Structure formats: structure tokens, C-alpha cells
């Protein structure tokens, strides 16, 4: 699943470690989600959305509907 995390993070001048800290996950996990290697659970996806004040759909793009 693609996502806009890298752009959103860059807009706020956050490092992956900052994002990982804010989400209480490892940097490995933040990186894997950002690169689309790992799809987060629904609770973590909502947590990410809350962090950026966006909806889940604004951040994650379903590959099957693109």
C-alpha cells in the first residue's frame, strides 16, 4: 500500500526517528511503513492519521483503486 508519509514528514521537517517516537514504534517500523513494505494495523493507521490531522484515506492509497 502506497502512502504520503515521506512527504508529510518532510513538510514538518521530521526525521524517521521523530516519527517513530511520536508513534511509539521502532524506526525500522516507521521506515518499513513509509516505504510501503509493511502495512500498519488499523489502530496504527488511525494513530498516524491523528498525528498529521488527516484521515487515513488522505495518507494511505489503496493500490487496487489507483
Amino acid at each position: 500500500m502506497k502512502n504520503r508519509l515521506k512527504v508529510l514528514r518532510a513538510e514538518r521537517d521530521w526525521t524517521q526517528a521523530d516519527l517513530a517516537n511520536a508513534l511509539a514504534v521502532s524506526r525500522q517500523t516507521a521506515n518499513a511503513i513509509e516505504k510501503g513494505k509493511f502495512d500498519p494495523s488499523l489502530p496504527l493507521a488511525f494513530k498516524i492519521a491523528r498525528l498529521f490531522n488527516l484521515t487515513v484515506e488522505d495518507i494511505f492509497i489503496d493500490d487496487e483503486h489507483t
Partner: protein
Amino acid sequence: MKDINQDGTICTPHHKTNILHLGLWTLAWLASTALLRFGAEYIWDYQPAYSIAALMTHLALGVAMIMVNVKHLANLDELQRKITMDAMGITLGVGLIAGIAYEQLEDIKLISFEPEINHLIMLMSITYIISILVGNRKYK
């Protein structure tokens, strides 16, 4: 306070404590295994009461180790948990398939010695370590 290791793994004081507890309980369980194995022969001369006490201690420490491991798993983040659970699944599968095949080897006269559980434990340990490394590399 939360630290991020160079390899990207998360390391809170809570996380470190869990790993330390897991290591200590594993060491205690290993020590009880050695005591059970060699105590009867070298310390209490096969007296059943001592052997039963050593066996009960060994089992109790094993249960404690499992519970600490479950707690450790619960405190991992979801990717770390997936990597660990995948590695456990592969290890269980390899252990079951290789264990049954290995056990048959003597029966069908392909080996002349009796299969030992230690060999299976070593295979499972190596499988688990490789699976963890491959999993971490996959999501690097």
C-alpha cells in the same frame, strides 16, 4: 525516555528491562536443566525426592520463562512482533518436519546412531536466528 538503536529497533527502559528479564529467566531455566541432568548423578546420588524437586523447579522456571517471553512479545511493536512470530512459525514447522524425518532415520536404517533431541534443538535455534535475521533484512 526512549532511545532508537542504530539498527532502528526501539529501546525504551521498559523494553530493555523485558529483554533483561527474558535473558535472566532463560539462564535460570538452562541452569535448572543442567542441575536436573547432572545433579542426580553428581550431587544427590539419584535420591528420588531431590530429583522430583529439581524436576518441579525446572518445570516452574520453564513456565516462568514462557510467561516472560509472552510479555516480551506483547511489548514489541507490530512489525517486530510480525518478524518474531514469522520466525517462530518457521522454526516450529522446520522442527516438526525435520524432527519427524530425523526420528525415522534410525528406523529405516539410514543412520546407525539414535537421534538426539539436542540436534533438533540446535537446528531449531539456528532456524530461528536465521529467520529473525532474514525478517529484519526484509523490512530494513
